[in-house]
C-alpha cells in the first residue's frame, strides 16, 4: 500500500518539476530576448516563436516520415536495399489483400454512415426547442477512448451458448427466435459490427459540426423559399443541402482520414483476427510483433498514399479561401 503512495508521489514530483522547468526556461528566454532592439530583435522573435515548433515537427514528423519511406525499400532489419519488393509483396500476399479490402470498406462505409446520421440529427435538432440534453448525450461517446468504447460494445456483442444471453444483441436476436450467434466470428458481418463502434463514437462530431453549419444558413433564405411554397424534402434539397455542402465534405474528409488511421478498435475487439484486420493494425504488428521493419514501413507509406488526395484537396480549398479574402 505504501509503495503505491511513494511511487505516485515521485511521479507527481517529476511532472511538477518538468512543468516548472519548462516555464522557467521559457520565461528566461523571453526575458533575455526582450532586451534586444532594432532589426535583430525581429529575427530573434521569429526564431523563438516559430523555431521550437518547427524543430519538433522536423524531428518528430518530417524526418521520421522520410526515413519510413526509405525503410520501406529495405529488408526486415532495415539494412539491405531490396527495391520495390515490399510493395510487390503487399499486392501479392492474399492476407494483405484482404486487409487492404477491409481498410477500403472502413473508408467507404463508416464515414458515410457517420456523416449521414450526423446530418439527419443536425437537421432534426435544428427543429427542436430543447436540444441541449440530447445533443450532449449524442456527442458524449466522442470523449470515450476507442478502447473504452470497444469494451462497451464487446459486452453488447457478448455471445454465450445456451439459453441465457448477457449481451444485448444476442438477447434481442434470440428473443425473436434466432439461435445465439458469435458475432465476432461471423465473417464478413464482424467487420461491419466493428464499424458500428466507430460510427457510435464519431457521429456526435459530425452532428455538432453540421449543426453549426445549418445554423449559419441565413434565415431569410429559408423564409423566402418557404414563401415560394418550398417545404420538406424540397427545402432540404434546394436550400439546406447546397448551403452545407462544403461542411459535409470537410466532415467526410476528416472521417476518412480517421478511419484510415484506425487501429485501436480492431486491436481491442479481435486483435485483427477472424478476417477483420486493417492496414493500420497490420502495420503495428509487422513492426512490433514480427519485427519486420521493411514491410511495416511499406504499409505505413501505403496509408500515406491513401490520404494524399485529401491532402491535395485540403490545400486547394485553403488556397481558394485565402484568395477570396
Amino acid at each position, binding site marked *: 500500500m505504501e509503495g503505491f503512495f511513494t511511487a505516485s508521489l515521485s511521479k507527481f514530483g517529476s511532472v511538477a518539476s518538468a512543468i516548472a522547468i519548462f516555464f522557467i526556461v521559457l520565461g528566461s528566454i523571453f526575458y533575455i530576448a526582450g532586451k534586444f532592439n532594432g532589426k535583430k530583435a525581429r529575427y530573434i522573435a521569429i526564431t523563438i516563436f516559430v523555431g521550437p515548433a518547427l524543430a519538433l515537427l522536423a524531428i518528430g514528423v518530417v524526418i521520421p516520415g522520410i526515413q519510413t519511406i526509405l525503410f520501406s525499400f529495405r529488408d526486415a532489419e532495415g539494412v539491405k536495399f531490396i527495391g520495390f519488393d515490399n510493395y510487390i509483396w503487399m499486392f501479392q500476399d492474399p492476407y494483405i489483400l484482404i486487409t487492404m479490402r477491409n481498410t477500403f470498406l472502413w473508408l467507404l462505409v463508416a464515414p458515410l454512415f457517420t456523416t449521414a446520421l450526423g446530418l439527419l440529427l443536425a437537421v432534426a435538432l435544428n427543429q427542436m426547442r430543447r436540444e441541449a440534453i440530447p445533443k450532449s448525450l449524442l456527442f458524449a461517446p466522442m470523449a470515450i477512448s476507442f478502447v473504452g468504447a470497444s469494451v462497451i460494445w464487446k459486452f453488447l456483442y457478448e455471445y454465450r451458448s445456451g439459453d441465457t444471453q448477457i449481451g444485448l444483441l444476442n438477447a434481442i436476436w434470440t428473443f425473436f427466435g434466432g439461435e445465439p450467434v458469435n458475432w465476432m466470428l461471423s465473417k464478413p458481418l464482424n467487420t461491419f459490427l466493428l464499424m458500428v463502434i466507430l460510427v457510435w463514437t464519431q457521429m456526435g462530431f459530425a452532428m455538432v459540426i453540421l449543426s453549426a453549419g445549418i445554423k449559419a444558413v441565413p434565415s431569410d433564405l429559408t423564409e423566402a423559399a418557404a414563401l415560394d411554397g418550398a417545404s420538406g424534402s424540397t427545402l432540404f434539397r434546394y436550400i439546406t443541402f447546397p448551403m452545407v455542402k462544403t461542411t459535409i465534405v470537410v466532415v467526410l474528409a476528416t472521417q476518412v482520414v480517421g478511419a484510415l488511421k484506425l487501429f485501436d478498435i480492431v486491436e481491442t475487439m479481435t486483435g485483427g483476427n477472424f478476417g477483420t484486420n486493417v492496414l*493500420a493494425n497490420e502495420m503495428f504488428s509487422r513492426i512490433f510483433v514480427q519485427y519486420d521493419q521493411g514491410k511495416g514501413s511499406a504499409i505505413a507509406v501505403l496509408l500515406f498514399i491513401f490520404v494524399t488526395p485529401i491532402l491535395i484537396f485540403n490545400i486547394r480549398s485553403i488556397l481558394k479561401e485565402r484568395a477570396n479574402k
Partner: protein
Amino acid sequence: MSLKVSKPSSGRQIFSSKIAAITVWTITILWTIPTFGLLVTSFRTGDEIYASGWWSAFSNPKFTLQNYKEVFLGGASESLSDGILPYFVNSIVITLPATIFPIIIATMAAYGLAWVKFKGSDFIFFTIFALQIVPLQMSLVPLLQLFTGGAHIGSVTIFPALGIAGDFAGIWLPHTMFAMPLAIYLLHNFIASLPRELMEAAHVDGANHFLIFRKIVIPLSVPGIAAIAIFQFLWVWNDLLVALTFAGGTEEVAPINAKLASLVGQYGSSWTTLTAGAFITISIPLVVFFSLQRYFVRGLTAGSVK
C-alpha cells in the same frame, strides 16, 4: 400557413417538429444504452452478471461495489500497487505535460506565423497545415530509434541518444510533436483574427513581441486555447498507439487506457473487472467533456465551419 410568430411555422421545416423530436430522442436512447449497460453491469456481482442480462437487474436490484474494490486493490493481493490506480496516476502524469507543452509551443508558433510575418511564413503555415493528416504510423519507428540510439553521421553524433524511451519524457515528447500541426492550425485561425489596431497600438507604445504575446495575445486567446487544450487532453488520455509504442506496458509508465486494452486481451479477464475498469477509464474524459463542453464545441466548429 401558420401565423404564430413564437413557433417556427411548419412550412419552413424539413420535417415536422414532432417527427424531429421523436427521431432525436429515439437515436439518443439507442446511443446511450451501450454505456448505460456497462455502468449497470459494473455494479453487479459476478454471479449475477453471468446469470442474467443487465436489463433484468432492475426487477431484483442487488448492487455492489465489489468490482470496483477488486479493480482498485488488484484482487487477491489487496494492494493498491497491483490494482488499476498506478495506471490512473500514470495517465494524469502523461496527460498534463502532454497537454501544456504542445499548447504553449503551438500558441507561440501561431503568433509568430500570424503577426511577425516574414518571408516564407505562409509557406511554413501551409506545410504545417498539410502535415495534419500524415498518419502517425509514418513516424513511430524512426522516432523510437532516435530516442534509443540517437542520430549519427559517421562517427559524429548530431542528435544524442536521449535514453527516454520507456520514460515519461519519452511519451510527453512524441505527443508534443504529433500535436503540433492541428494545434498550430486551429490557434492560427484564432490568433490571426485578433484586431490589427490593438497590435499596432501596442507596437507604437514600444511593446516588443514578447510583451505583446504575454499581455495581449494570451489573454485574448483564452477561449481558443481552452478549446484546443480540452481536445488535446482527450486525445492524450484516450491514446493507445503512442502509449504502446513509447511506454511499453509497464506499471511504471503505461497509461490506464493501455492497461484496459491489455485487460481485454488477457485470457480469463472477467466482466466484473472489465466493466469497472472501463468505467474508471472513461470517467475522467466524460467529466471533462460534460463540464467543458461549450468550449470544446466552440473550438471544433471554429476549425471546420467557414
